[in-house]
C-alpha cells in the first residue's frame, strides 16, 4: 500500500529551481534511498514534505490526505518524523531530555493538567520516561543519557536525531544524511540502528550522497539539479552510467 | 491655494529632505553594526550626543574653528568606535541581552558624565555658515542647506565605499555570510572594527551639525535613537536600500505631521503607522524573506 505520494513537486528560490517537478511513490514498510550529489536538492525536498517551506507547485499526499503546505508540527502529528543534517538536537538539554521533550503528541496532557500536575499528567510523564529509555536503548545511547547533548561526538548527535524522530511514533521517517561525516564503525552502528528501526515497521526515506547507504535500501531514487534522473534497485543504480557521471561530475567526497 | 499654503508646502518638503538626510546618516551606521556584528547598538544616540559635545567644547570653550572641531570630533569618535568594538561588543557577541545591558551601562555613564560636568548654560556650537538665501518665494538658511549637502555627500561617499573598495566588498561578504567570509580569509574583527569606526564617525558628523543647528544637551540623542530604530526596522533589518527609503518616509512624516496634528501626537501616529506596516510586512519594506 502507498503511504506517501508526491506529484510534480517544485520549489523555486528566486530564479533557480531547487526542486523541479518530482514525482514519487513510497510503499509502506520499505526503505527508500534518495541519493544525489551535494546541492542536488535533497534537503529542500525534505523541507517541502515536512512543511518547513511551502512548495511553489505540486502536491504531497500522505496516507490519502493532502498535506501540502501544512505547518511542521501538524505534519509531525500525522506521524512523519524527520532528522536534520546540521542541527539535529537541542544543544543545552541532556540526551534524555532531548528525547523526553520530543514526546509531544501521544500521550498528550492538557494545559491545565500540566499546570496543576494532575495524576494523568504524572502518569503520562512516567510513561514517556520509560518509552524514551527504550528508544535510547534502540539507538544505543542509553549509556550517555545524562550527558549534555552538545558535548557528544558527531555520530551520537546524529543518532540522537533519529531517537528524537522516533519519539513521535512515526510511520514515516525521513533521515537527512544519517551517516554524513561519520567514521566507519559509527556508520556500521547507525546502519544497524536504521535496520532495527525499519524492522519495527517504520517506513524510512533516507537522503544521502554517500553510495555506501545503498546496501540497506530496498529502492533508490537518484536526483540531480532538483530532478529525478533514475529510479531502481540498488544494484541497477550502482552500474547506471548517468549516476556515475553525476557523481564524477561533482566529486561527492569533496564535502567534509 | 493661497501663497501662505504654497510656502508652507514647499518649506515642509525642504524640511523633509533635510531631516531625511540626517536620519539616513545615522541609520546607515546603525545598520552597518547590525549587518556585520549582528548587534543592536542602543548607545548610538549617546555616541551622536558625545560627538556633538566634543565639537561644541572645542569650538566654543577652546575656541578653535568649528570645521576643525568637527574634524577632531569625527576622529575622536572613530577611535572611540575601535575601543567600543574591542572591549564592549566583541566580548559579548551573540548574546543580545548582554549587549543591551552593556549599552545601558555606556549610556548611563556618558549621559550623566556630561550632565554633571557641564554647568547649566545654553550650549550650542558656533554656526558653520550664516545667512539666508531665497529661492523664489521660499527662503532657506545656508545652515540647513549645509546640513543637507553634507548629509547627501557623505551618503554618496559611503555608498561608493561599500560598493567600490575592497573593504566595502569584504563588509558585504561578512554581512551576508560570516562563516563563509572567515573561510575566505577575511579578518572579521578588522571588518567589525571598521564598521564601528564608520558608524561612530557618521554619528559624530550628524551630532556636530545638529549641535550647531539646535543646541547641545545630554538628552539630544534619545529621540534620534528611536528614529534610527524606526528606520532600521521599517526599511527591513540590514538592508541598505531600506535605510534610504525608510529614512525618507520618516523624514517626510516628521516634516508634515506636525502641521496637521500637535506636538507629541506626531510621534504616536508615526509609531502606530510603523506598527501597522510591520503587521502586514513583518520583515520590513526591503527585508529579506524569513522562514519559520
Amino acid at each position, binding site marked *: 500500500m502507498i503511504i506517501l505520494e508526491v506529484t510534480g513537486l517544485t520549489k523555486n528560490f528566486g530564479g533557480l529551481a531547487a526542486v523541479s517537478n518530482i514525482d514519487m511513490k513510497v510503499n509502506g514498510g520499505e526503505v527508500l534511498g534518495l541519493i544525489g550529489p551535494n546541492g542536488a536538492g535533497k534537503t529542500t525536498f525534505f523541507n517541502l514534505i515536512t512543511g518547513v517551506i511551502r512548495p511553489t507547485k505540486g502536491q504531497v499526499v500522505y496516507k490519502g490526505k493532502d498535506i501540502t503546505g501544512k505547518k511542521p508540527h501538524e505534519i*509531525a502529528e500525522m506521524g512523519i518524523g524527520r532528522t536534520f543534517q546540521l*542541527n539535529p538536537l*537541542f544543544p543545552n538539554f541532556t540526551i534524555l531530555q532531548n528525547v523526553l521533550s520530543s514526546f509531544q503528541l501521544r500521550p498528550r496532557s492538557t494545559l491545565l493538567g500540566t499546570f496543576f500536575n494532575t495524576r494523568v499528567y504524572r502518569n503520562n510523564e512516567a510513561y514517556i520516561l520509560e518509552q524514551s529509555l527504550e528508544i535510547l536503548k534502540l539507538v544505543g545511547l542509553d549509556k550517555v543519557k545524562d550527558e549534555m547533548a552538545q558535548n557528544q561526538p558527531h555520530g551520537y548527535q546524529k543518532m540522537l536525531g533519529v531517537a528524537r524522530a522516533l519519539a513521535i511514533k512515526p510511520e514515516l521517517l525521513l533521515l537527512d544524511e544519517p551517516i554524513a561525516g561519520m567514521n566507519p564503525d559509527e556508520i556500521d552502528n547507525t546502519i544497524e540502528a536504521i535496520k532495527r528501526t525499519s524492522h519495527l515497521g517504520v517506513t524510512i526515506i533516507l537522503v544521502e550522497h554517500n553510495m555506501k547507504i545503498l546496501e540497506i535500501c530496498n529502492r533508490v531514487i537518484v536526483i540531480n539539479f532538483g530532478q529525478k534522473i533514475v529510479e531502481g534497485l540498488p544494484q541497477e543504480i550502482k552500474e547506471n552510467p548517468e549516476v556515475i557521471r553525476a557523481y564524477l561530475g561533482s566529486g561527492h567526497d569533496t564535502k567534509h | 491655494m493661497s501663497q501662505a499654503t504654497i510656502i508652507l508646502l514647499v518649506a515642509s518638503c525642504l524640511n523633509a529632505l533635510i531631516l531625511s538626510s540626517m536620519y539616513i546618516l545615522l541609520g546607515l551606521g546603525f545598520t552597518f553594526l547590525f549587518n556585520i556584528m549582528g548587534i543592536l547598538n542602543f548607545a548610538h544616540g549617546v555616541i551622536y550626543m558625545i560627538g556633538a559635545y566634543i565639537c561644541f567644547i572645542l569650538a566654543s570653550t577652546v575656541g578653535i574653528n568649528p570645521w576643525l572641531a568637527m574634524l577632531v570630533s569625527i576622529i575622536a569618535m572613530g577611535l572611540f568606535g575601535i575601543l567600543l568594538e574591542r572591549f564592549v561588543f566583541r566580548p559579548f557577541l551573540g548574546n543580545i541581552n548582554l549587549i543591551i545591558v552593556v549599552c545601558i*551601562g555606556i549610556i548611563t555613564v556618558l549621559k550623566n558624565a556630561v550632565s554633571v560636568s557641564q554647568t547649566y548654560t545654553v550650549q550650542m556650537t558656533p554656526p558653520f555658515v550664516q545667512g539666508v538665501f531665497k529661492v523664489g518665494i521660499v527662503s532657506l538658511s545656508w545652515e540647513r542647506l549645509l546640513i543637507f549637502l553634507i548629509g547627501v555627500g557623505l551618503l554618496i561617499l559611503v555608498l561608493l565605499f561599500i560598493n567600490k573598495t575592497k573593504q566595502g566588498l569584504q563588509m558585504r561578504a561578512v554581512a551576508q555570510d560570516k562563516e563563509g567570509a572567515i573561510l575566505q580569509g577575511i579578518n572579521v574583527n578588522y571588518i567589525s572594527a571598521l564598521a564601528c569606526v564608520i558608524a561612530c564617525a557618521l554619528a559624530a558628523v550628524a551630532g556636530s551639525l545638529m549641535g550647531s543647528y539646535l543646541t547641545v544637551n545630554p538628552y539630544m540623542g534619545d529621540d534620534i535613537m528611536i528614529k534610527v530604530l524606526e528606520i532600521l526596522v521599517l526599511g527591513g533589518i540590514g538592508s541598505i536600500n531600506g535605510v534610504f527609503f525608510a529614512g525618507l518616509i520618516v523624514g517626510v512624516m516628521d516634516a508634515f505631521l506636525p502641521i496637521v496634528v500637535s506636538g507629541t501626537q506626531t510621534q504616536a501616529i508615526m509609531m502606530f503607522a510603523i506598527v501597522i506596516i510591520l503587521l502586514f510586512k513583518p520583515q520590513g519594506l526591503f527585508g529579506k524573506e524569513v522562514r519559520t
Partner: protein
Amino acid sequence: MGLMITVRDTASRRKNYIQIIICGILICFLAIVPLLTNSPYNLHIFILTLIYIIAAASMRFIMTSGQIPLAHGAFLGLGAYVSGILSKHFGISSWLTLLVAALVAMGVGTFISFPFARLKAFYYSMISLFFGVGMLQTIESFGKLTGGITGITGIPTLFHTASKVPFYYCFLALMLISLFILYRLEVSRIGWNLKAIEQSYLVAGSVGISVVQHRVLAVAIGCFFAGLAGGMYATYNVTISPSSFDMAATLWLIIYVTIGGMGNFAGPIIGTLVLFLLPQYYSGLKQYTPFISAAILFAVLYTFRDGLVSVPGLVVSFYKKRKKGRSKS
C-alpha cells in the same frame, strides 16, 4: 513531571534541598521586613521591590522562549494606566482593576505577538519596541484621560490607611503566588517546550511542538503578570506618569534579569533585590548615583556574565578544583 524525574539523582537532590532552604530563608526574611525597619520609606522601597520582582520574573518567562520583549516596561504602564483610570475616573474597586489591568495587558500582548510568532524571535523584539514607545506617546498626547506627560495623581488605593504594612503583606502574597505560578509553568512541559523552541525552532517544529502557540502563550502569560504588577504599582503609588514606563524601564528590567542571571528562575529575583536595594545605600551621592549603578553593572557583566545566581556554583567548582590540585600535588 518526567523532565524533573530525570534529574533526580542524589547530587541534584541535595542541590534542590539547598534551593528550598534558601527560598525559605528569603521568604522568612521578607516576611519580617516590616519588623526590621521602623521607617515607612524603607517599607516603600521594599514594596516597589516586590512589584518589580513580579515584572522581572514575568519578563524572564517570555525570554525563555527566545523572544526579548522590548515593551515590557510599557506593559507595566498599560496595566498601571488601565487600573488607574478605571479606579479614578470610573470608581471601580481597586481589587477588580488589578485583575482587569492584568487581563487587558494579556490581551494586547497576545494581539501584538501573534503575527510575529511564526517569524524569527528578533522581529517580535522590534515590534514590541515600537509598540511600547508608541503606547507611551499615545498616553502622553491624549492628555484629557491620561493627564499627558504629567500622568495621573490621586488614584484610589487598596487600603485606606496611612501605614504601608498592609500593602507590604498583600503585595508579598501576590508576589509569592505569581512566582509560584511562573515556576510551575517553567518546570512543567510548557517551560521545557519554550526552552526547546529557544534552542532550535526547526527541531522543535519537527517533533510536534507548535512554535506559534507556545510563543504566544509565553507572551500572554508574561504580559498578564506585567499588567498585574503595573496595576499594583498604580494602586500603591497613587501617582503614575509615562516617564516611569518608558524605554529605560524596559531596559532596566532586562538588566535585573541579566545581572541576576538569565539561566535560573531565581535570577530576576536576586537581580531585582540587589539592584533595587543597593541604590538606597549610596543615594546620598545625589547626581553621582548613576555612576555607581553603572560600575556595579560592568563589574558583574565582566566578572560573571551568567549573573549573580551563577556565583555560588562557580565558588563551589573553584574550591573543588583547588582541592583536586592539592590532592594531585
